């Protein structure tokens, strides 16, 4: 913030003629940028196929993918909001959630032949196990790697975060080996549930969106209404003042990590069901995508993270489908850099101390 406000007047003084354009791009540049891909391919679809069904399919798949990113992004945004730290290991916590899910399917005896009722009960049980495992893991990481460094320079916890990310990846390697592993397709993920105007909606899409929305609503209510939620928001605003008001800041921070981990665990289960492949490296990619989502929405902002998750999901799906999956990470990262340049505070966020 400080550096930004110092640089800004000097720049404005030099290029005052460009001011309106600058303001326009500051305001709408990111939104225009986000609309480029869908609009371009929409026009292409209409002119080539005469219908928008391909784009529609992309959007549906994107939304359901985005639901997973949204769950992971919540963890980033909550943690950043409260301790101003990018929890680099968060993506790998999500990965451990997926691995736990895949392991637990066998434990409760879920197979492709299990009936609907048994499946529902088993999945609910798995969901709880995954969420608790990832949540506790996240709390443990905070305790070991971040809390001792809370007053150290910013660099220190970031480096331990990167270190933990690698440790968790290697736990993943020990667990399932170094190559992607296919798991049983419990919900017949790609089977079509219904179709509207050429747009197919599969089991996986319904599951991803249907599991994410209640979780996010529950979380929103928890944060706005409960005592702990209020304590979290107070700590995010001003830790010292919160402490003076009798809030236990350490517990509150642990709770935030717990909630972030719970969401990542849920995301991990959905990812495992959706993709039916798990890999030790999935967390790295997912973490970066979800982080981009969190930044896009405005880091520290819960609704922003969910919105960003859906948007990134769509971008990723369009890129996978039209440009080629091997380019998707690069495209997501280009968006990340562009957000940072055009609008570091994100779509819904206010200027933070770091990004102003």
């Amino acid at each position: 913030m400080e550096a930004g406000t110092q640089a800004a007047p000097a720049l404005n003084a030099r290029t005052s003629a460009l001011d309106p354009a600058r303001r326009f791009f500051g305001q709408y540049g990111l939104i225009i940028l986000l609309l480029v891909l869908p609009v371009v391919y929409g026009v292409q679809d209409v002119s080539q196929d005469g219908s928008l069904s391909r784009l529609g399919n992309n959007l549906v798949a994107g939304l359901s993918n985005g639901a997973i990113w949204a769950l992971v992004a919540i963890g980033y945004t909550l943690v950043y909001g409260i301790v101003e730290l990018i929890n680099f290991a968060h993506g790998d916590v999500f990965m451990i959630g997926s691995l736990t899910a895949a392991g637990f399917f066998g434990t409760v005896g879920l197979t492709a032949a299990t009936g609907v009722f048994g499946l529902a009960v088993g999945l609910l049980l798995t969901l709880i196990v995954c969420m608790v495992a990832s949540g506790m893991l996240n709390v443990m990481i905070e305790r070991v790697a971040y809390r001792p460094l809370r007053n150290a320079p910013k660099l220190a916890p970031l480096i331990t975060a990167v270190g933990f990310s690698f440790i968790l990846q290697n736990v993943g390697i020990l667990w399932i080996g170094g190559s992607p592993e296919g798991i049983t397709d419990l919900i017949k993920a790609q089977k079509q549930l219904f179709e509207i105007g050429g747009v197919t909606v599969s089991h996986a899409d319904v599951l991803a969106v249907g599991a994410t929305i209640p979780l996010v609503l529950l979380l929103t209510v928890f944060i706005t209404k409960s005592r702990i939620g209020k304590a979290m928001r107070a700590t995010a605003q001003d830790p010292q003042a919160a402490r003076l008001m009798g809030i236990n800041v350490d517990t509150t921070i642990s709770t935030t990590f717990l909630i972030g981990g719970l969401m990542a665990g849920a995301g991990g289960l959905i990812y495992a069901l959706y993709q039916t492949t798990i890999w030790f490296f999935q967390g790295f990619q997912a973490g970066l995508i979800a982080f981009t989502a969190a930044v896009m929405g405005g880091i520290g902002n819960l609704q922003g993270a969910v919105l960003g998750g859906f948007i990134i999901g769509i971008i990723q799906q369009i890129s996978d489908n039209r440009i080629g999956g091997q380019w998707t990470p690069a495209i997501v990262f280009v968006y990340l850099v562009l957000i940072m340049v055009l609008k570091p505070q994100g779509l819904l966020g206010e200027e933070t101390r770091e990004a102003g």
Partner: protein
Amino acid sequence: MRRPELKPLIAAAAAGLAILIGLLIEMDTTMSVVLALLVGLRVFFADDPRAVKLIAVGLVVWAIVLPLFHVEAGGFIDDAVLALAYAVMALGLNIIVGFAGLLDLGYVAFFAIGALAAGYFMSGFVFDANIHVLVSGLNAELPGIHLSFPLVLVIAVILCTIAGMLIGLPTLRLRGDYIAIVTLAFGEIAGRLVLNGDEISIAGQKLTNGRQGITPVDKIDLPLLQPFEALNLRPWFWLALAMLLLVLFVNYRLRDSRLGRAWIALREDEVAAASMGVPLVKTKLLAYGTGAAFGGMSGAFLASLSNTVNADQFQFSFSIFILAMVILGGLGSIEGVVVGAIALTYINFRLIPDVLNDVPSKIGLDFDLTELSFGIFGFLLVIMMVMRPEGLVPERRRKQELVEGIGTGETAGAGESVVEARA
């Protein structure tokens, strides 16, 4: 030193450790003894600047004769050449992270650009061209662009400096963790471009060769000398040593210059530095540019040494590998970073695959330790940051910053409850 009577003891312990490590990595016994002697003296005379300088000269002489005591290729010297090249790279990253305090997680981008410079200008990759400058032997007859290595080095340095500044630009307004993420994004974009570069072609010329790699890359060919050979690593060692000494010299001079002090001021407090008149934009961009240039130098060297430029070399984990060297040795500490680079190279290329690899199977566990090397580095990062954030060979000023910061951090709960009680 707090207890001067312990000095000889500590010096002896350091010497003993040096000799042990020397033997462990299969260094020649005579050379290990000499190294141990130098290390012991260095620790003993740590407070006498004249002696320190003299010992440094002794160390350089020691390093120059070192390859003569080993076979031309294979074993010790293989890792030694790599260690020197990585040390150059780590010193580059140290300027960005250690001096200026800008956490760069995409340093691999500069390795990639440096290596690609060698790939383009020292191989038959650009098959339409037929350009030969100052090369001798077989290279002078093959198609493609074949430039002399010093020229390629200059190109790599220029390209990397430009790239470093370009990558630095979007991070200028950002601070802290955002810089880390943006640089990481650039590193990944660079990696992806190299990986998928075989799909992009400009005028029939592919951008890169993707996973297959640009190979063979010319062996280094210095003017007035025979081209280097793959089976005689001594010249490679001396060249890498020369590069390291050059970079060390530049590093020391930069650290004590006006620019170096500006970097350190920036790292300690950006706002205070700006209000004291440190030009933020210029200072930051110069940090990125300089750091990137060293990465490019080393990248070009490594491309020629490994004889290939392929996409699998340029992964995120490489950035962390170099970062771990800087952290292990001590952020901002020039000697420390060299020590860290040599140590991690040996841990990665010798200790883990050769010495420790059968340990898991001996204690009845079934996994391949080499697969877990980055887990070990991750563990190292966490342990170092929590237990000894100033690194193995700390820089004085940095130590004050980090230890003070963490000292209050560890006692945060207790300290603040005292404050509360008083209130």
